[in-house]
């Protein structure tokens, strides 16, 4: 039997010890009354709960404005300036699978080409360790130039919707830095992307959000000038190098191809039922 499938007595003993330690993790209950009040009083998530700051980036909203079908290609934009804090994530986890075309067919509700036209601050999250660091959430406006594929359930973005994107980091006495995750587009102004989005308004969807969210780390592709892989990723200018994509991903296969081929591939793909979360 392969070692990955074996659990020895020593493993079980070790795991039992880990469980004791796990159960001993101290937690501080949140204020349930405030929790109720903030949830009911407003559409905002949390205004001020127990002194904790807003969950910034996990709740970042992206406004999507649709444009007529088949808009003109976006001209390439220059590199993005300013300090950058890049988070290394060699084994990034996913909210939903996004590496393959079949992942997109099963988990996404719509795939669009969109350009970032504006950005806004949302909530903040203080580090709480005395360093004074504050992460600032970010909201961007996307202008959709083309819907490449839609599940056909009326979910195509025709109104303001919500997804998550990376924000900024404020440190005392320092210029504001952009937060980015290595190899993941942070959705910069004037750049275009292919985006696989999921409608999380669905009751019974454990995304639990309200609006649109990017599926995962391989669901936003740079696409300036209508070419996959060219544009912004990780806060930097990228030029379609195969190494910039998740190894073995569909994005890597489509690198440097025109967006029109993505559209063709999606529309030629075997239809798949939407994977909902088990309840």
């Amino acid at each position, binding site marked *: 039997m392969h*070692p*990955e499938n074996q659990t020895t007595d020593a*493993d079980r003993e*070790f795991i039992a*010890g*880990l*469980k*004791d*330690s*796990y159960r*001993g*993790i*101290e*937690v501080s*209950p*949140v204020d*349930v009354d405030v*929790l*109720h009040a*903030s*949830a009911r009083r407003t559409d905002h998530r*949390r205004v001020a709960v*127990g002194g*904790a700051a*807003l*969950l*910034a*980036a*996990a709740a*970042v909203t992206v406004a999507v404005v649709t444009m007529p079908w088949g808009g003109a290609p976006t001209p390439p934009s220059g590199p993005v300036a300013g300090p950058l804090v890049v*988070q290394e*994530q*060699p*084994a990034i*986890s*996913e*909210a939903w*699978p996004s590496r393959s075309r079949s992942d997109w067919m099963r988990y996404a509700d719509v795939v669009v080409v969109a350009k970032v036209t504006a950005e806004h601050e949302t909530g903040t*999250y203080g580090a*709480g*360790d005395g360093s004074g660091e504050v*992460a600032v*959430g970010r909201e961007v406006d996307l202008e959709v130039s083309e819907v490449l594929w839609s599940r056909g359930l009326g979910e195509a973005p025709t109104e303001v919707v919500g997804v*998550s*994107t990376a*924000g900024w*980091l404020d440190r005392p006495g320092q210029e504001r830095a952009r*937060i980015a*995750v290595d190899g*993941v587009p*942070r959705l910069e102004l004037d750049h275009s992307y292919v985006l696989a989005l999921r409608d999380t308004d669905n*009751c*019974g969807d*454990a*995304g*639990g959000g309200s609006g649109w969210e990017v599926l*995962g780390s391989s669901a936003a592709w740079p696409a300036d000038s209508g070419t996959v892989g060219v544009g912004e990723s990780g806060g930097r200018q990228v030029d379609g190098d195969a190494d910039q994509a998740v190894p073995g991903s569909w994005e890597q296969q489509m690198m440097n191809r025109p967006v029109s081929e993505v559209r063709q591939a999606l529309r030629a793909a075997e239809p798949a039922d939407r994977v909902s*979360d*088990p*309840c």
Partner: protein
Amino acid sequence: MDADFDSFYATAAPSLQRLAVALTGDVHAASDLTQDVLVKLLRAWDRLHVDNPHAYARTMLVRQVATSRRTGFLHRERPTAEVTPIGVVADFAELAAESDRLVAALRKLPPRQRQAVVLRYLEDLSTEQTAEAMGCSSGTVKRAAHDGLNSLRNQLTEPAER
């Protein structure tokens, strides 16, 4: 329904926070993530028809952590330099110290290994349930859990005991 939610909250909140701490290694972020999940649940509570709201909330939390990581929100997440080996637990104070060491050791794992170990071994999910929550295959879970457990053992066990 509010009474239902209150009852759910009373039992779920501590375990969700514990899970969030284990997944993020950051008590402040864990608190925020837990609150965010609970607010979302409360808002959807009346139209939510699930057999197991605890499992549902756990999946929401795992996804919330994943989203936060993808967007760089958990930018402060970084490995700790050293992890003290776990010894014999003698009292509550020592148990708390052991828990701190566990959290520190978990922070040194790559995200996927950390998720797999926490969900599979500490939350006692099946391989399939873990795969569902992580959004990956069962094979990936097995590999990540195996590698993560070995890494934890290397970090937390005295050299003489290995």
